[in-house]
């Protein structure tokens, strides 16, 4: 302000010659500055939105591939003399045949298919077999164990192909890019082309990615996020069961009962500070207290849930207090006026009216907890291969598991680029959950929010 008043124009303003709408040089300059300033603002918002668009586009383009998988459909003869030598269909005897016992069957099936389709290739059967995933034998074995009656028959079975072949089908791997790649060769890709043209090798929706379990780093094509989704679910149950009641109780105390004293001040300062503590510090707390001191099992969703509870509590307390505050005092006065105690007025009248707001805050807190990764690194939920779904509810809380963001991080560290596609796909699933939760929160707020 002072700038303007202290620097009067040294050059006396020329007598207006024409219309008032003719702008002099200084006005033009000022207006140009105004335009530029406004442009900076638009540019800033543009940059922010552009980043959002780039991020979302990247996630969608890189991740959708994970929901599709290439399969090779072959007719396999389940030879009785190989799989059930005694011929009595005893499940224990069938289980004795290891995955190696299934390899010749698959190899023979592939060879037969290639011959049947009249495909010319210089590859030996072993070389042909390399286009298949390392998981195929185990898959077939599981199928036979589940359906022992099929032994002796010829069944049509959908085999996973190697991640490189899958990448080739999706356009990620090209003939140029495999020059130094030992796991696939050009003749094999020729074979893949012909099998694809014949229609036995095709790409289709892959439910195993969503519901399946993680696989070792040799078999990206078999990896799924299902088991770690369960891990996240159990963690969220812990968070919900602890953070909601504790958070609501704490907010009720602070908002309705707390006297103005030192203790209340300390609590309030603590809550606002905890909201800003880096999440990794909560991980250190979890490691030191829950695992080293209390000897709770490492990598267990229970421990993850406890850590995330402590982390989400401030969020829930802050939003709950806001919605309690929004209930007008007249409600409390009316309840007190007809003889209710303070406690009754809160629990019978204020709390139900604040419930939608509390729920909204809780859902947002849960969404935050669902996407959090850093504390989970320290309590061992990363690096664990979530290969089996937990058996039973108690095991779900106590047996080691991963969680969705931890699983994504784990995939991002592995060497095979096929896992990156999995990681982006995992992010799509994670974001679908987050968007759903936030939408529910917004709808709740819109539907039940009350203006007093």
């Amino acid at each position, binding site marked *: 302000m002072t*700038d*303007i008043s202290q620097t009067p124009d040294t050059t006396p303003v020329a007598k207006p010659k024409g219309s008032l709408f003719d702008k002099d040089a200084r006005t033009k300059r000022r207006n140009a500055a*105004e335009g530029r300033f*406004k442009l900076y603002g638009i540019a800033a918002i543009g940059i922010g939105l552009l980043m959002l668009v780039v991020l979302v586009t990247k*996630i969608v383009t890189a991740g959708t591939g994970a929901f599709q998988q290439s399969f090779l459909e072959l007719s396999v003869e389940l030879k009785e003399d190989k799989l059930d030598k005694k011929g009595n269909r005893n499940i224990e005897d069938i289980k004795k045949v290891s995955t190696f016992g299934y390899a010749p069957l698959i190899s023979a099936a592939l060879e037969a298919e290639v011959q049947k389709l009249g495909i010319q290739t210089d590859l030996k059967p072993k070389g042909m077999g390399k286009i298949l995933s390392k998981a195929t034998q185990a898959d077939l074995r599981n199928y036979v164990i589940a359906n022992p009656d099929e032994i002796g028959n010829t069944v049509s079975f959908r085999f996973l192909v190697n991640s490189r072949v899958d990448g080739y089908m999706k356009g990620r791997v090209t003939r140029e890019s495999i020059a130094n790649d030992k796991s696939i060769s050009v003749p094999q890709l020729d074979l893949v082309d012909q099998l694809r043209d014949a229609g036995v090798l095709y790409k289709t929706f892959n439910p195993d990615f969503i519901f399946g379990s993680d696989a070792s780093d040799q078999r990206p094509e078999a990896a799924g996020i299902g088991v770690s989704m369960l891990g996240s679910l159990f963690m969220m149950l812990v968070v919900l069961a602890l953070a909601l009641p504790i958070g609501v109780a704490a907010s009720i105390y602070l908002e309705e009962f707390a006297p103005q004293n030192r203790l209340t001040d300390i609590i309030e300062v*603590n809550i606002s500070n905890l909201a800003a503590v*880096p999440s990794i510090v909560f991980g250190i707390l979890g490691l030191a207290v829950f695992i080293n001191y209390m000897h709770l099992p490492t990598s267990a969703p229970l421990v993850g849930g406890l850590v995330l509870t402590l982390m989400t509590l401030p969020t829930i307390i802050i939003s709950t207090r806001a919605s309690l505050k929004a209930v007008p005092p007249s409600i409390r006065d009316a309840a007190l006026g007809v003889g209710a105690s303070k406690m009754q007025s809160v629990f019978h009248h204020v709390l139900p009216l604040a419930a939608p707001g509390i729920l909204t805050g809780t859902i947002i807190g849960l969404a935050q907890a669902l996407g959090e990764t850093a504390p989970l690194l320290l309590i061992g939920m990363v690096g664990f291969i979530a290969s089996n779904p937990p058996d039973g509810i108690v095991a779900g809380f106590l047996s080691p598991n991963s969680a969705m963001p931890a699983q*994504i991080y784990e995939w991002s560290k592995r060497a095979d680029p096929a896992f990156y596609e999995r990681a982006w796909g995992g992010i799509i699933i994670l974001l679908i959950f987050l968007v759903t939760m936030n939408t529910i929160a917004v709808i709740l707020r819109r539907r039940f929010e009350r203006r007093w």
Partner: protein
Amino acid sequence: MALSWLLLILLALAVIGYFAGRSRALASADGDARALHSLPSYYGYNVALTALIPALGILIIWLLAQPLIVENTVSGMIPDTAISEGSDRGLVMSEVRRVAYGLDGAIASGLLSEAQARNADADVQALTQSLKDAGQVLTQDISKPILLAAQKYRGITSTGSIAMQMAVLIVALVGAALAYIRTHKEFRARNVVEQGILALLLLAASIAILTTVGIVLSMLFETMNFFQLHSWKDFFLGSTWAPNFRGGSELSILPLLWGTLYISLVALLVAVPVGLFAAIYLSEYATGATRSIAKPLLEILAGIPTIVYGLFALLTVGPALVSLFGDGGALGLGWMASSNAVLTAGLVMGIMLIPFVSSLSDDIINAVPQSMRDGSLGLGATKSETVRQVVLPAALPGIVGAILLAASRAIGETMIVVMAAGAIAKFSGNPFEAMTTITTRIVSQLTGDTDFASPETLVAFALGLTLFIITLGLNIFALYIVRKYREQYE
């Protein structure tokens, strides 16, 4: 008896207590609820809560304290001779625990009888073998003192848990009985119950304090252990970060702090101008419709989990920067060797912080009284002049506070730097080089096989404590500024 059974019994006791208390109260008033001091259900709640709450309290305290007591007793009875060279008491204790759990597991699977497990003269080799047969994980063969300690450990633990169950049940029963006897129509049940609930509410509110105390204590103890093993001078004043699990590590926080601050600075250089201009545009220029679309869209950026930003940095921004600045890149500069770099992490963190800066500054700019704008516009200033010379100076303290909060976020951010910043600790001003941060090192020192007796692991707690203090300091300072500023215009 498992914990879940104990809890079920307590719950059942509480439910029975509720109905017993209620009917006793009604009976004392000859079935006329109007003669009671409180509503009949309050008499029931009184009995139920008196049974439940003290018992649960004892249960929790006992569960927390027992491991500590058992640990101390057992570790006292391990002779120094049993601790081999290069090992220490902590490692031996974890072996003892493993053996004890192994014995439990073997008994549960029926391979050992309780008597065999308790036999102090048992053949150590045979026992090792049978534990291995039972599929229990043992790192080494059991030695005599370890076996004795493990048996003692099991003994104390099982006596302890029986004693705990007895204590909890007795307290619950006594509580229920006392409350039941006191139940009478003159008894002020509602007041008592409400007092109890108020205490519970206070307890819930105090968890915030407990968490802070837990954070500080857990890190403080391990940090003190660390400073006994490693000189504090090297930690605070050294110049090299070179952990070496064979000993002789140099563990100085300074290079890590430099990396952290440098990356945060890059992030703020991105986030502050963009966020601030976005806030100015949204609050001063944008129409209601634009604002209602652009603001939530920008805030989506704040709701995206950091793992997504980490992956974005690792797989998209990093390679893109290398293809611009790297060897044979589009600009032909050859400055950037790998996609892990200060710039990668800083840029992506900056994107993450844009909505944080913009929504905080937006609030602050909106808090500047309209009369100040009107005054300036009335004197003939243009809108941008008003913003630059009136609104921004008035909002400056608040904006500084917002920037400090964003800085504290950046310093404590983990996933982006873990995935995109690199692992090399050094003092360098080159933003195209990989550098490492405090949070990255905490993660790498505490994941995988950790040995809580080596300075290389314990240093993570010292780093964590430093990080906690830095971010806490920044937050308190920023909140103080913001609050002071808000008061100015209220």
